[in-house]
């Protein structure tokens, strides 16, 4: 038996009045479950369908109960009982279960279960019973006497009838016999009793039938009132039981079917309402193509299109579409019918009705058995879409060919199409405006007028195009201005060069003559020095010879020392050898002594040997003596050799001293010689240099003359060029906007006020930074060349006002100030707050000065550039100022 775990003590109560319906196949697998069942079981429908019904079995249920259930239903009888079920979460709920087999063609097809909510008393009773069954204290089927009683009570009706008959007949027969034979009272009473019993049984039967009938009639009425929960006595074994069971089966089946029907109806309603409210246009037709359903959207669509459709189909009435036939949309309804009738899959088509473009998507609708029961159609109105497509295509074609004046007509357009058309028109406006402005500016340039600018407010590529055109024109104007200035300069300079060159060639000639004199005196000096060098060389040679001789002497001495050393070594070796000889003599002596001993032992026979031994001993002693003497001699010779080598060593060292002395002399002489030689070479070089100088000077003189001539011709060239530029000059003067050279214009383009305030602001910023209330990075503390003032200074400021001492000072102080700012940042970052403080003080002082200087320069600039008496155009400057002000409002660090 399947035991589902876990379980909890939580009871889920069934709602009164609901019923749980399931269908199971013959194997107990769930094939249907109504919503109430799904809800209370806690499982999803998917989990339930196909699963065995014992999925919800509660372990508290005794196996016997289910065995009884299965035995009952398999016998084709309905079963009724209280069942404790388990939900998915382990909770339990009690139901009053009614299980009945469903027959189809006389065979059990499936089982139907309908469950009602039981009363608490029923539950309590069932709990006790099941508990007892589990503990084997009770059984579902009655046993023993109750069983017999039950069997008797529920005895088949024919048996009861037979019994009644017997009870009637037997006493009568017996009575007849008794009366006939004895005529006793007792048997008479027995006959009476039996007759009474037979009568009672008969009455009981009649009552039974009538009560059953009455009950059944009541039940049928109740069933008619949809009251299906009628208690029936199902356990009776007789035909009445069978009858009641049949009734029960019917009751359960009806109830289940009703529940299922309700279920289906609810589902359909749900879908219909959903369809009503979808945004697509949906229409359903039956097999006769009568429109049986239209959702709200399709109704609205047709309402809107009614006028148009009527133009083509005058009969069309949008309000009466429902129920009418779909044929009315078609000129050739037969074709449409044939096609829709054969429809198996999704079908799409387009439809043009009264100038309305419609897309149609049709799908067949089939019932459970797959039989065609209708068609569902989706509509889409594309009329507006198609028109706007056309108009846009026309406009784009115009624009492509450069005709920018065309626009889309906005009338009659609304929603998306109106918006789209407006935007496309705006696009064309912009393009037209840009192209027109550029064309007019460029035509002025062609006429030499560089003053035109594109002024429209454009973004993106238009903006950059505009900027590029404007800056190109500016640059061109600037270049021409500068060329003019330069040619003025060149003209003036060429004249100065010409006069300078004349002067130069005169002086060069003078120089050349004095150089010639110098050269001749150097010649004399050279010969003297050469003489000196030769003499020194000779002295060096002599010194070298002397040294060589001394070195040879030293070598000889060394050899002598080495020889002495060898003699010494040899002597030592000789001494060693003598030692060995001495040793041998000693051993020989010992041997001889031993021989003497042996000889003495041998007595007379040893006599001769003794003499020999004595001789040997004498020899040994003599050799020992000789060895000793040799040793002494060698030792004395070693001594003498040592003394000799000492002398030689001394000689050697003396010679060594001589050698080193001579070497020193030689070195000095050699140095003198070398110095003389170098001197001579140096003088020669000087000589040579003078000669070269002479030549060069002469060449210089010639070149100066040439240059003079060239500068004169350059003046001519310059004049010519100025004549050429005058063409532009005339033009330039006509445009006050570009009267100043671009450099001057730029130089004056500085907003002195802003620059002042920015440089003053440095003080505050640095103070905040040092106090820790603001942050500053190295990037912000830009170099003195990269701030706006710096840019101005090094691009045009210095070039234009560089002559003024104020300007020079400004440049210096500005550089210093930026350096100080940076060092202040560095110091602070390194934690050297003292140095940072010092830097701050310096920056404060410098910024004050800079502000002062800027004021000076401003006044100079205001008083016009003295070199070029040109007026600065106020308009572009103002323009630039405002722009700068706007852009750098928050970007103070640019200064």
């Amino acid at each position, binding site marked *: 038996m399947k035991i589902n775990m876990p379980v909890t003590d939580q009871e889920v109560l069934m709602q009164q009045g609901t019923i749980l319906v399931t269908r199971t196949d013959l194997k107990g697998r769930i094939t249907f479950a109504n919503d109430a069942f799904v809800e209370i079981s806690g499982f999803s429908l998917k989990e339930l369908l196909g699963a065995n019904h014992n999925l919800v079995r509660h372990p508290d249920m005794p196996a016997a109960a289910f065995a009884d259930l299965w035995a009952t239903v398999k016998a084709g009888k309905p079963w009724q009982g209280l069942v404790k079920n388990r939900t998915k979460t382990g909770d339990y709920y009690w139901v009053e279960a009614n299980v009945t087999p469903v027959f189809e063609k006389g065979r059990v097809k499936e089982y139907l279960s309908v469950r009602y909510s039981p009363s608490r008393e029923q539950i309590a009773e069932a709990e006790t019973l099941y508990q007892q069954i589990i503990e084997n204290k009770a059984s579902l089927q009655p046993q023993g006497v109750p069983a017999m009683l039950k069997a008797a009570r529920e005895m088949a009706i024919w048996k009861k009838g037979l019994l009644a008959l017997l009870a009637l007949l037997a006493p009568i027969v017996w009575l007849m016999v008794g009366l006939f034979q004895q005529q006793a009272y007792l048997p008479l009473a027995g006959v009476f009793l039996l007759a009474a019993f037979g009568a009672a049984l008969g009455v009981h039967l009649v009552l039974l039938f009538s009560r059953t009938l009455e009950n059944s009639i009541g039940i049928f009425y109740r069933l008619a009132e949809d009251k299906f929960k009628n208690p029936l006595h199902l356990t009776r074994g007789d035909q009445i039981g069978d009858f009641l069971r049949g009734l029960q089966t019917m009751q359960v089946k009806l109830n289940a079917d009703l529940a299922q029907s309700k279920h289906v109806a609810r589902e359909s309603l749900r879908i219909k309402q959903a369809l009503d409210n979808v945004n697509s246009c949906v229409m359903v037709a039956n097999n006769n193509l009568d429109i049986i359903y239209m959702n709200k959207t399709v109704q609205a669509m047709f309402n809107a299109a009614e006028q148009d459709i009527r133009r083509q189909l005058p009969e069309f009435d949008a309000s009466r579409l429902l129920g009418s036939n779909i044929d009315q949309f078609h000129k050739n309804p037969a074709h449409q019918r044939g096609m829709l009738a054969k429809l198996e899959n999704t079908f799409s088509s387009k439809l043009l009705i009264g100038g309305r473009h419609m897309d149609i998507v049709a799908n067949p609708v089939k019932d459970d058995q797959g039989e065609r029961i209708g068609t569902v159609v989706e509509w889409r109105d594309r009329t507006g879409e198609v028109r706007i497509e056309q108009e846009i295509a026309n406009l784009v074609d115009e624009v492509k060919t450069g005709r920018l004046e065309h626009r889309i007509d906005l009338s009659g357009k609304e929603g998306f199409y109106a918006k789209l058309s407006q935007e496309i028109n705006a696009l064309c406006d912009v393009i037209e405006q840009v192209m027109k402005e550029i064309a007019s500016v460029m035509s002025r340039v062609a006429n030499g007028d560089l003053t035109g600018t594109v002024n429209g407010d454009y973004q993106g590529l238009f903006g950059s195009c505009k900027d590029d055109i404007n800056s190109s024109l500016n640059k061109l104007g600037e270049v021409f201005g500068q060329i003019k200035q330069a040619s003025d300069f060149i003209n003036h300079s060429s004249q100065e060069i010409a006069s300078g060159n004349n002067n130069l060639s005169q002086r060069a000639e003078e120089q050349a003559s004095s150089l010639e004199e110098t050269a001749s005196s150097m010649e004399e000096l050279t010969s003297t020095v050469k003489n000196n060098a030769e003499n020194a060389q000779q002295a060096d040679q002599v010194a070298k010879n002397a040294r060589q001789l001394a070195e040879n002497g030293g070598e000889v001495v060394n050899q002598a020392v080495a020889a002495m050393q060898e003699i010494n070594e040899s002597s030592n070796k000789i001494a060693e050898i003598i030692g060995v000889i001495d*040793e041998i003599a*000693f051993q020989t002596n*010992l041997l001889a002594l*031993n021989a*003497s*001993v042996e000889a*003495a*032992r041998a007595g007379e026979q040893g006599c001769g040997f*003794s003499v020999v031994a*004595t001789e040997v001993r004498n020899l040994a002693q003599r050799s020992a003596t000789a060895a000793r003497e040799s040793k002494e001699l060698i030792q004395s010779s070693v001594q003498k050799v040592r003394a000799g080598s000492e002398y030689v060593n001394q000689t050697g060292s003396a010679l060594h001293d001589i050698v080193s002395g001579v070497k020193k002399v030689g070195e000095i002489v050699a140095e003198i010689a070398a110095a003389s030689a170098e001197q001579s070479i140096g003088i020669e070089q000087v000589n040579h240099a003078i000669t070269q100088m002479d030549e060069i000077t002469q060449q210089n003189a010639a070149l100066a003359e040439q240059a003079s001539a060239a500068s004169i011709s350059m003046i001519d060239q310059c004049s010519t060029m100025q004549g050429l530029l005058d063409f532009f000059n005339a033009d330039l003067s006509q445009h006050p906007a570009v009267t100043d050279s671009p450099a001057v214009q730029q130089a004056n383009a500085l907003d002195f006020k802003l620059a002042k305030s920015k440089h003053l602001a440095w003080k505050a910023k640095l103070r905040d930074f040092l106090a820790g209330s603001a942050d500053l990075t190295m990037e912000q503390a830009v170099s003195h060349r990269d701030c706006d003032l710096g840019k101005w200074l090094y691009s045009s400021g210095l070039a234009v006002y560089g002559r003024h001492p104020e300007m020079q000072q400004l440049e210096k102080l500005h550089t210093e100030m930026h350096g100080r700012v940076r060092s202040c940042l560095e110091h602070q970052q390194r934690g050297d707050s003292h140095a940072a403080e010092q830097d701050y003080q310096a920056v404060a002082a410098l910024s004050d000065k800079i502000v002062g200087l800027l004021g000076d320069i401003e006044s100079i600039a205001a008083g016009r550039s003295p070199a070029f008496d040109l007026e600065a155009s106020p308009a572009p400057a103002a323009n630039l100022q405002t722009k700068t002000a706007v852009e750098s409002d928050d970007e103070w660090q640019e200064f």
Partner: protein
Amino acid sequence: MRSQAGNDAQFLAFVLGSEEYAVDILRVQEIRSWEPVSRIPNVNPYEKGVVNLRGAIVPIIDLRERFNLGHSEYTPVTVVVLHTRDDNGRQRVMGVVVDAVSDVVDVDTAAVQMTPDFGARVSTEYINGIVSVGERMVMLLDVDKLLKLDGGDDDQAH
């Protein structure tokens, strides 16, 4: 073989310090040069130790130390005279370290003079007599007494 009347006998003479001694040559087994000895514990200091003489263990005594003549360094030319001693029929060999072996001298036993109490540093008990060889005076040592030492082989009192 004690020489008695007017017989020549040979003696081995050796030098010990400034004095010259001689022993009966027949009591000399061998003369060897010095080689290191293995010390024997708890014996008299002049008993220098034992050496391996062709498989026999032979004790070596220093005669200088024995006669209290001071100690001299042992060099490869230090000489060891191996003496034999008859000890109850057993030949015992013992080495004696001397400064140098000078000679084998022939001595007329008649010329041997009895030991006068001449105050030599050596106790006269070891000296059998004195003999002149040329200019030199040689003391003849009694080998047995010399080698018997302090009780020889038996229990020795330390």
